[in-house]
């Protein structure tokens, strides 16, 4: 079984992301593996452990530093990595990114053999669009079970659970398929010292656009379907009045709510 797990490199939410003149994120600024993408990596590793002969490939599309996202996955236990890097990709929107990811999966198939399962996070921690996985499935014509909080493999059938507000649905797909997972799925492992050392020797392939058979016009700002007009820091919220409860805290709170016509 060959599993490809998508790992996105995102700016560190605790730091200040930087933006370029065209209002796109400066992907060269300090970043890390999108936390939500640790869950698909963990699922890939557990499924691989349960299979006789399995291989986990971590794949990212992003600037030079994005290789850090792949490296983290290798440290957790993935077998090899693929990094799609090309200046022309900068500024790609969701659909343009999905096209690169879909082409990258085809490249992996050409080089390594058929891919049985693509695992992704259900959303990235920066753009948070949740559309990339579905669009990759659409472009590759693969069955997709998305936003799942549990997944179990039985032969060629993957049985998943999708939790909603009013109901929980069981969704079944036949491999090959794409599955996007939530942070309810598992507890991602921490890389061990051994894992960190071993990662240094694992194969890591780098491809540029032309090697994927994509044209520059299909990606980046030129290939995007949406355009960012403006980006601004959200107005900082002002800390308001803070009272210490000395026996009247609840009453004071309700007086304030009443003054704002909230009760």
């Amino acid at each position, binding site marked *: 079984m060959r599993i490809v797990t998508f790992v996105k490199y995102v700016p560190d*939410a605790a730091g200040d992301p930087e933006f370029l003149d065209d209002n796109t994120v400066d992907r060269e600024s300090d970043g890390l593996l999108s936390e939500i993408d640790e869950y698909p990596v963990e699922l890939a590793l557990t499924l691989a452990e349960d299979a006789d002969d399995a291989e986990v490939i971590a794949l990212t599309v992003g600037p030079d530093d994005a290789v850090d996202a792949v490296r983290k996955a290798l440290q957790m236990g993935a077998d090899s990595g693929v990094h799609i890097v090309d200046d022309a990709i900068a500024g790609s929107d969701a659909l343009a990114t999905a096209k690169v990811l879909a082409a990258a999966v085809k490249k992996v198939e050409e080089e390594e053999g058929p891919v049985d399962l693509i695992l992704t996070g259900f959303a990235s921690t920066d753009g948070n669009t949740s559309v990339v996985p579905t669009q990759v499935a*659409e472009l590759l014509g693969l069955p997709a*079970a998305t936003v799942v909080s549990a997944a179990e493999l039985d032969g060629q059938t993957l049985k998943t659970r999708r939790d909603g507000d009013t109901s929980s649905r069981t*969704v079944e797909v036949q491999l090959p398929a794409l599955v996007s997972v939530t942070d309810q799925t598992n507890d991602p492992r921490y890389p061990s010292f051994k894992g960190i050392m071993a990662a240094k020797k694992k194969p890591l392939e780098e491809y540029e656009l032309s090697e994927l058979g994509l044209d520059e016009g299909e990606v980046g700002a030129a290939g995007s379907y949406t355009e960012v007009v403006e*980006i601004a820091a959200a107005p900082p919220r002002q800390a308001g009045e803070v009272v*210490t409860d000395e026996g009247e805290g609840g009453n004071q709170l309700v007086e304030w709510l009443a003054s704002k016509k*909230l009760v």
Partner: protein
Amino acid sequence: MSEVLVLVDHVGGTVQKSTFELLTAAAQLGEPVAVFVGSDADAQTAAADLAKYGAAKVLVASDASLTEFLVAPQGELVASLVESRQPAAVLASASADNTEALARSAAKTGSGVMTNVSDLDGEGQGTQSVFAGAYTVKSKVIKGVPHILLKPNSIEAAEASGAGAVEAVDFTASDAAKTAKITAVEEKASSGRPSLTEAAAVVSGGRGTGGDFGPVEQFADAIGAAVGASRAAVDAGWYPHSSQVGQTGKVVSPQLYVAAGISGAIQHRAGMQTSKNIVAINKDDEAPIFELSDYGVVGDLFTVLPQATEAVNARK
């Protein structure tokens, strides 16, 4: 005037408030046309309400595959309507299912998609919040037919009379779309409280509740609020994940958000910091939640909330 397609959210023909908001938003861009997935009988019930908010037509698709399989058939339906009707835009509320239906239609029709939009102007420019709510982005679709997902509660629904003419859509999903089969559906018991994303007020509890959500629920009921929870409370099994507020839970934007026993981690803020008024109750006067609160009480939620509940009830 060109049509603007609006995907209807409904439960057995009862149209959700989010759809009325979409119809209002759609009217700025063209003629609102509702797309209803469900039975003919339910569509008839829904049509009257949809007309009240300006739907000129109600297109009904009843192919069984639309509910037997996950989203791909819906994506196909939307794409076929986009191709046959060439609307000015497609609008839907930003639920997981709708997001994926529009993502698929966008990929099929070569269109741009905008997700989690909190405001939409007459030119189709949308406002979104990114990086866990720290930044606000304005963007627009520049190719194809704009596919726009609006967050519930971000636009005020306004009544407007529409013809509401019901029209059946001839749609059958392809076999390629019937690959993610829904084999079981487990309904969840309803709490009887307003839904988290549509409620005007939300009261959330965190690790500070120590697992006792009683005071949180009682205060919520006194003010007619929905109940939310931090991930710490959800992970501990104290409250269901469908009530989680934050980056990997619900993003809410009510008139009033009350955080009780919640520290205010960045991932939690991502789900509530656009609320109009924020109140925090926390024992620790240095909890980061106070930095974004309009009103804060440093104290024990087990004494502050019951007193507040009593005070609210006394005012009634």
